[in-house]
């Protein structure tokens, strides 16, 4: 082979190898004693203030974007998320649409501003990261957001049938292959799915799945099933990244500042709905 050609071949091979090295993820999946993936770690979950943003609402069966009219809703109340006009951005039922149009954090206050529990959906959407601590029997989600926690039994343990409805609901987990499936029900109906204020009812079942793509990457999916609020199930798919070891989970107290702002009137206090049975 002529020398110039050999040089080109060597350079191309080096370039190819370097590219392959740079793109190669750490494929070593950490495992627990039972052989299942170990999700433990401090994760950077993406901040999702609007679960219905264009292109992100998927069909859970095909993972393709749902066809939504996104028609404007001029009769909706004041917008929650910085002035973005509301639209038919999800497959609402009549009940769900009425709730979406009626949401008015400006004049009625939002429970998150009052530092009340955000709910499972908004906890996972929040921007501050989450520490997972896992063993074969359970997963503990330690949200930096307001230093909240969520306990997920994963080995068949049952919650009491008559446990009261709650802000964050109750979760159980099971494995489907190497994917952890976390189903959450039992919501009190006071929460919203996201900062934008997308509604849900007490019939909500959230299904969050977590799959380690590599040692530092989780594919996270969430399916919203709520036949009272939505005509069909819908889904988001997200990517989480492991934080550096030096980035530690920190204390967070919403009340620290917001208590004063609530007392002074800078933040309008939230009150539970008068007709508690509507949700």
């Amino acid at each position, binding site marked *: 082979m002529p020398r110039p050609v050999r040089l080109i071949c060597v350079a191309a091979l080096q370039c190819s190898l370097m590219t392959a090295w740079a793109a190669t993820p750490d494929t070593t999946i950490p495992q627990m004693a039972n052989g299942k993936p170990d999700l433990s770690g401090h994760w*950077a979950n993406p*901040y999702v203030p609007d679960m219905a943003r264009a292109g992100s609402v998927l069909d859970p069966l095909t993972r393709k974007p749902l066809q939504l009219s996104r028609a404007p809703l001029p009769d909706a109340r004041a917008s929650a998320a910085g*002035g973005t006009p509301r639209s038919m951005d999800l497959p609402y039922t009549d009940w769900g649409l009425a709730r979406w149009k009626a949401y008015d*954090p*400006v004049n009625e206050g*939002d429970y998150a501003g009052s530092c009340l529990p*955000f709910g499972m959906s908004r906890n996972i959407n929040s921007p501050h990261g989450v520490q997972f601590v896992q063993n074969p029997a359970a997963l503990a989600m330690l949200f930096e957001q307001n230093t909240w926690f969520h306990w997920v039994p994963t080995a068949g343990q049952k919650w009491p049938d008559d446990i009261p409805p709650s802000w964050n609901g109750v979760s159980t987990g099971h494995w489907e292959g190497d994917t952890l499936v976390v189903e959450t029900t039992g919501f009190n109906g006071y929460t919203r799915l996201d900062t934008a204020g997308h509604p849900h009812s007490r019939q909500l079942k959230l299904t969050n799945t977590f799959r380690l793509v590599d040692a530092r990457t989780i594919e996270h999916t969430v399916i919203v099933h709520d036949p009272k609020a939505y005509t069909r199930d819908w889904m988001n798919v997200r990517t989480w*990244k492991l934080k550096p070891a030096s980035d530690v989970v920190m204390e967070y107290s919403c009340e620290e500042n917001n208590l004063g702002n609530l007392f002074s*009137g800078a933040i309008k206090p939230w009150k539970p709905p008068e007709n508690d049975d509507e949700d």
Partner: protein
Amino acid sequence: MKTDTLWLRIATLAFVLPGTGGALAHHSTAAEFESGKPVTFTGTVQKVMWMNPHIYTYVEVKQPDGTSFVYHVEGGAPNGLFRQGWRKDSLPVGTLVSVSGWRARNPDSPNVGQATMTTADGSKLFSGDGPAKAAP
């Protein structure tokens, strides 16, 4: 710095870097501040309240009648700012700053949200990388 650490930092920054303090608000900013009430002023830093869920910088502004008014300028979440390299003492008391933002909906509140705060040399405060960025 190892390449994998660098990439982790870049990936992490992509998630945590806010454009302004309000960009990472986890509750409705529109509920608290009004875009139709913009405000711009220059004053001196009285103190920095390094508190959750948002830090507040108290900025004293001299009024034409000789009195002073202290605005409470909302910034980002302290944990996120810490990770970006900002600390409570990154902005010393007495520093002259210029602020633009939105006034609170409540007319009695001194709070200013969605704020941009700069020093005399044009440096943006509590936005982007802070002076202690060496520690992630």
